Structure formats: structure tokens, C-alpha cells
């Protein structure tokens, strides 16, 4: 045992030495490993940025490595089934490069891989993740000459806090986190309040059939909004109050769950659920048959107090190996028609103004996908809170413990 410990100690020293020089010497797969050292001199990043800046419109420099959520882009038989264009095949045909799709299951896994230097050309990070990756120099600046379709982006989405001016990322799809519910179980005449979950009197009748998401920021965010605070609050007292509220609400909940809550709502296991708009609508849609319309029984509301909104973006990571193909792909996705097909496939709203004419009418007119202007004002986007993020995680863990 003692020998083992000595081995440990010796190797720890070696590892430390390696780690220190690692950030400048490691070239695992053509990428850089920024983050461990102050980016005083980082020639590789400059090199990639320089080649990205040199790309021209429609230029390709090899096959594209796309790192995306599963089934988040119309492709193959699924596109066929949904009667939308297979965007990956269309890109391959048009630019004569092939696309290799890799799937991630959480923003954090994707971040860890990029931070470690794994080479991908295009990634699809969520809003808060963009600010994290930007601050760690893990994203390459987009070159407007190679991505002229950036001008298609709707004005509301050009200056969001996670990436002002869309210098590093282009919005891909966006949506809201609100309440899905069975009609008749709550009072929704004057709009739905977060009180149907957090207010003891209002929620008493549905106790045991309510669900919240299981996510530090989303769950805490709903509590913060109900209390009248910002979802990006960095005031410990406010966050503590939100955690206390969640702890109090716990007894009336069936579950905290981000997994399949929409199915449980449709099957009657829950009557009120916090969740993402696209999930609810997809579940209602799929529960409907020729002689049953689930939309008559279930609804989705953005609560009167406000709600969290999220944006998934498309960006080029610093580990890019084919910066020109990458930017050509982003430009392709930002095309009006392609952006429209994306929404017709995903049922999430498009931040692409040029896409509107290609989106099915029923989607454009659905206020749970495209909120009314007055509702739009009540939405707030998540921001990365830097070091304060751990405070949320701990408060949430404590609230549930």
C-alpha cells in the first residue's frame, strides 16, 4: 500500500508538469486545449481564426464533422416521414462533401469534449453554453463574408446577452419553458400563474399530480420568477428563497423529472407540469388520432409572471478542422427555406426572419410556439453566471436533500 502511495505521489508530479505544458503542446486531433492556462499567447487559436477568416462564401475544405443533439436536424427516413427536406443530404449534394454526424446528450458533455480538444467542425450549444465557451476561447468567430445569411436572423435575436452581435454563434431554434396542463384542472381564465405549482392554496387540489423539471437552472428559475426575481439572479438571498420555495413545494409534487414528463401528462399521471413547449406539443400531436384531438384536453401556457426562454445556437468550436465547410454549413442552415424546414420538422420556433414564409401556417399561428408580442416581453433568457453557478447547484441539491 505504501508503495502505491509513493507511486501516486511521483506520478502526480509528472502529471502536473504535463498539465502545465499541456495547453501549449497538446494537439490531440488538430485542436487546441485552451482553458488550463491564461491565453496570453495562443498561436493555434489565432491560426484557426485566421483560416476561418479567410474562408469565402460557399467554400469547402473537407468533410463536415457535425456535433448535434440526436434527431435535431431533418435527416434520412425521419425527414421523409415528416415530409421535410433531408438537410444533411441536401448539403452533401450541393457542396459535394459528406457530413459525419455525432450526437451528444448534454451541453456539459459537449463542452468537456471540445475543451479536451476533440475535433468537430460545427456544434449546437445552448445559449448559456455559448457564453461559457466564448469566455474559455472555445469558439471561433464567424466570418460574415462566408456566412452572409447571418443577416436573415430576426432583430430580436441579434443582440442576446450570451453573444451580442452574433459574432460567435447563430441562433438555431428557440423555445420557452412554461406549464403544460390538463384543461379543467387549474384556473386559466386570466392566464396561468406559476402559483398553480408554487402556491399552497392554488395547487392543493392537484397535489401529487404536479411535476417540475429536474434541472438546477430551470427549476430554480421557475421559483425565482414566481417570487418576482430574475432567473439570472446572483443575489444569494433570492436564490436561497427560491430553494426554500422548492423545498416547501416538494410535498405536493409527484416528481422532479425532465424525462418523459409530457407522456405522463398525456396519460393522466400528471395534470400540471413544468416543461419545454416543443415537448408538450409533440406529445399532444402524437396523442391525437383521427377521432381524438388531444389539443381539446391539454394546453400549454407561458405563465403570467413570465418564463424562461432558451435558444439553441449553431457555432464553430476552436477544435474545428474544416473551418470553411463549417461556415458554409452554418450559412446553409441560415438560409430561409432550410430554416423553415428545420421548424417544420422540430416544431420549435425559428429565429430566422427569412424562414417565416416557408413555415407551416399552423405553426406560425400557434401562440405556444410563436408567443404573442405582449408575452414575448415577459420572457427572459438564461445567462451563464460564472462562479455563482455552483451556488445554484448547491442550493438546488440542498433543497432536494
Amino acid at each position, binding site marked *: 500500500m505504501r508503495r502505491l502511495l509513493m507511486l*501516486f505521489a511521483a506520478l*502526480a508530479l509528472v502529471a502536473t508538469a504535463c498539465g502545465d505544458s499541456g495547453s501549449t503542446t497538446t494537439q490531440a486531433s488538430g485542436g487546441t486545449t485552451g*482553458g*488550463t492556462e491564461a491565453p496570453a499567447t495562443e498561436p493555434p487559436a489565432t491560426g484557426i481564426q485566421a483560416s476561418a477568416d479567410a474562408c469565402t462564401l460557399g467554400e469547402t475544405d473537407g468533410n463536415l464533422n457535425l456535433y448535434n443533439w440526436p434527431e435535431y436536424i431533418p435527416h434520412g427516413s425521419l425527414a421523409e416521414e415528416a415530409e421535410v427536406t433531408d438537410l444533411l443530404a441536401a448539403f452533401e449534394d450541393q457542396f459535394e462533401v459528406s457530413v459525419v454526424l455525432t450526437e451528444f446528450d448534454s451541453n*456539459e458533455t459537449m463542452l*468537456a469534449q471540445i475543451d479536451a480538444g476533440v475535433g468537430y467542425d460545427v456544434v449546437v450549444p445552448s445559449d448559456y453554453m455559448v457564453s461559457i465557451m466564448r469566455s474559455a476561447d472555445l469558439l471561433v468567430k464567424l466570418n460574415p463574408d462566408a456566412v452572409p445569411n447571418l443577416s436573415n436572423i430576426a432583430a430580436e435575436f441579434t443582440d442576446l446577452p450570451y453573444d451580442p452581435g452574433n459574432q460567435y454563434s447563430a441562433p438555431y431554434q428557440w423555445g420557452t419553458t412554461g406549464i403544460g396542463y390538463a384543461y379543467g384542472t387549474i384556473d386559466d381564465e386570466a392566464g396561468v400563474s406559476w402559483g398553480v405549482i408554487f402556491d399552497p392554496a392554488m395547487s392543493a387540489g392537484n397535489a401529487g399530480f404536479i411535476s417540475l423539471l429536474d434541472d438546477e437552472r430551470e427549476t430554480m428559475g421557475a421559483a425565482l420568477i414566481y417570487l418576482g426575481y430574475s432567473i439570472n439572479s446572483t443575489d444569494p438571498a433570492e436564490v436561497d428563497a427560491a430553494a426554500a420555495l422548492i423545498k416547501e413545494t416538494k410535498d405536493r409534487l409527484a*416528481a422532479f423529472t425532465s424525462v418523459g414528463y409530457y407522456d405522463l401528462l398525456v396519460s*393522466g399521471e400528471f395534470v400540471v407540469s413544468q416543461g419545454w413547449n416543443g415537448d408538450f406539443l409533440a406529445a399532444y400531436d402524437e396523442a391525437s388520432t383521427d377521432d381524438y384531438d388531444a389539443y381539446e384536453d391539454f394546453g400549454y401556457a407561458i405563465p403570467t409572471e413570465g418564463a424562461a426562454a432558451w435558444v439553441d445556437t449553431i457555432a464553430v468550436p476552436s477544435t474545428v478542422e474544416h473551418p470553411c465547410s463549417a461556415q458554409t454549413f452554418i450559412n446553409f442552415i441560415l438560409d430561409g427555406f432550410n430554416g423553415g424546414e428545420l421548424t417544420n420538422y422540430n416544431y420549435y420556433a425559428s429565429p430566422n426572419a427569412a424562414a417565416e414564409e416557408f413555415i407551416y401556417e399552423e405553426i406560425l399561428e400557434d401562440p405556444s410556439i410563436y408567443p404573442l408580442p405582449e408575452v414575448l416581453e415577459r420572457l427572459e433568457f438564461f445567462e451563464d453566471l460564472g462562479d455563482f453557478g455552483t451556488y445554484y447547484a448547491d442550493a438546488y441539491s440542498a433543497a432536494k436533500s
Partner: protein
Amino acid sequence: MTLTDERTEEVAVNPRLERAARRRESWRGFLHAVPAYVYLIVFFVLPLIVVFVFSFASRSRTGRPELENWNVDGWTRLTDELVRTIVTRSLFVAALNTVLCLIIGYQFAYWIATRRKQSTRTILLILVLIPFWSNFLVRTYAWRMLLDSDGYITQLGELTGLWGRTLFTLPAVFLGLLYGYLPFMVLPLYAAIERIDWSLVEAGRDLYASGTKAFMKITLPLSRPGIVAGSILVFIPSLGAYVTPDILGGAKTTLLGNFIVTQFGAARNWPFGSALSSAILMVMLLATILYFRSGARTV
């Protein structure tokens, strides 16, 4: 004194020759272990050092620790009350799950191991694992359906008046854990029970008259290596289990596995996550080695 030692004394006619032969054998035996150990050193022990080093580093924005400002914050946080609560609860869950798996798994493994034909035993053993070659998530979804308000198991409970909706309750958590970890108990138990010399048990029956006593004195001690291995393979992983408890239990409590994942994920606090993992590793390693030794020293 172990069996091996006794035999050494009996067989050793010429002690010096015997010793030389043994040494040669030992050397060869050591060579058998080389591939596994070289492999584990390269792909486990060396990377593990990274984790240990990280536990003393400071947090950065991406979560990947910065190596400049050394500190022991990650380690001092281990004494937090929050950590204590979570660890205690997880220990309870893991221990209860291990006991459940052992009670049900032992009888089950014993039954399989005592089928007369080798092929029947093999088939039954494989049949234990086949359900687990489906996808984890759909299995858990299926349990949700069986346990929810109009699920078959709930209906059965209501029919007999014994239980109601089980989904999102503690029993559902244990049902899910039992389901997921039973094979980890059954396989080593089977491996240990199947090789028992049944003539010994027969002799024991004659000697002790009572079947229970014969079982306690003979069968149980002989299957002890399987009990030890099985309970380790169930206890340790279920200490870190969180997906099944969360999906079936409603995630109303934080478990250790979840807490660690949060540190490496949303909290992006790798130093604390590393300290937590290192501490678990050290404590459980010591406990495991002692427990295994106790299992090896019987008979």
C-alpha cells in the same frame, strides 16, 4: 490456516525442490496477470492521478480545473452537512438494495446452480441477462408504465387492497434498483454455488440431521466467496446509482451519484467532484479489500 497451506505441508516431500517449483509457478502466474495490470495502469491508474491532482486545483469557467492556485477547498467541503446527509442516505439505499438482492438472488442462483444438466444451467443464466440487452431507458419507461395509476402492478395492488400507485414512491425506487442490480448478485453467486461439492452437503445432512443446520454449516460457508463478490458488485454501483431512483422515485431527494454528476456537469466544479470521487475511492477501496479478505479467510 487455509486449505492451500495444509496441502503444502502434506505434499512437500522435499521442501527445497517444492519451494523452487512454487517460485517458478509464481513467476508464471505473475505473467498471467501482466496484460490486465499493464492495461489498468495505462488506462486507469495513470488517468486517475489526474483526478487526484484536480482535487487540489481551483475551479475554472469550463469546469476543467486551473492548476495555478492550489487549495484544499474541495476536500474541506467534504465535511459539509449537505455531503453528510447525501452520503448517509445513499449508504442506506445501497445497503438495503444489497440485502434485497442477496435474499432474492441467493435462492435464485441456488436454484439455477442445482439444475442437473449443464446446458439447462447455462441457458437459465443467459436468460437472466437477456432482458438487460434491451435499452436501459425503455426498460425504465416500462417500469413507469407498470407502476403508474393504471399500471398492471397498481391494479393488482388495488385488487388485493395491498398497495396503490407505486410510481414516485420509495418502494418504486427499490423495485427499480433490485431489478437493475439483481444480475450482479446472481452471476458471482452462481459461479460460487455451482462448484460446491454436493457430496459434502449430503454428508452434512446426515451429520446435522436438520436441513437448515446443514445449510448454515456447509452450503453457506462454501458459497461465501460468491456472497462477498456479489454484494460488492451490488453495493458499490448502487451507491452511485441515480438515474433509476430519479426516474422511478421522482428525484425528490439528492443521491450521491447525482451529486457527483452535478459537480462535473451543471455546477462545473471539477475540483470538488474530484475530491469527492477520490474520497469515495479511498474509503471504499479499504472497505472492499478488508471485506474480500474476510471472505477469503473462511472455511
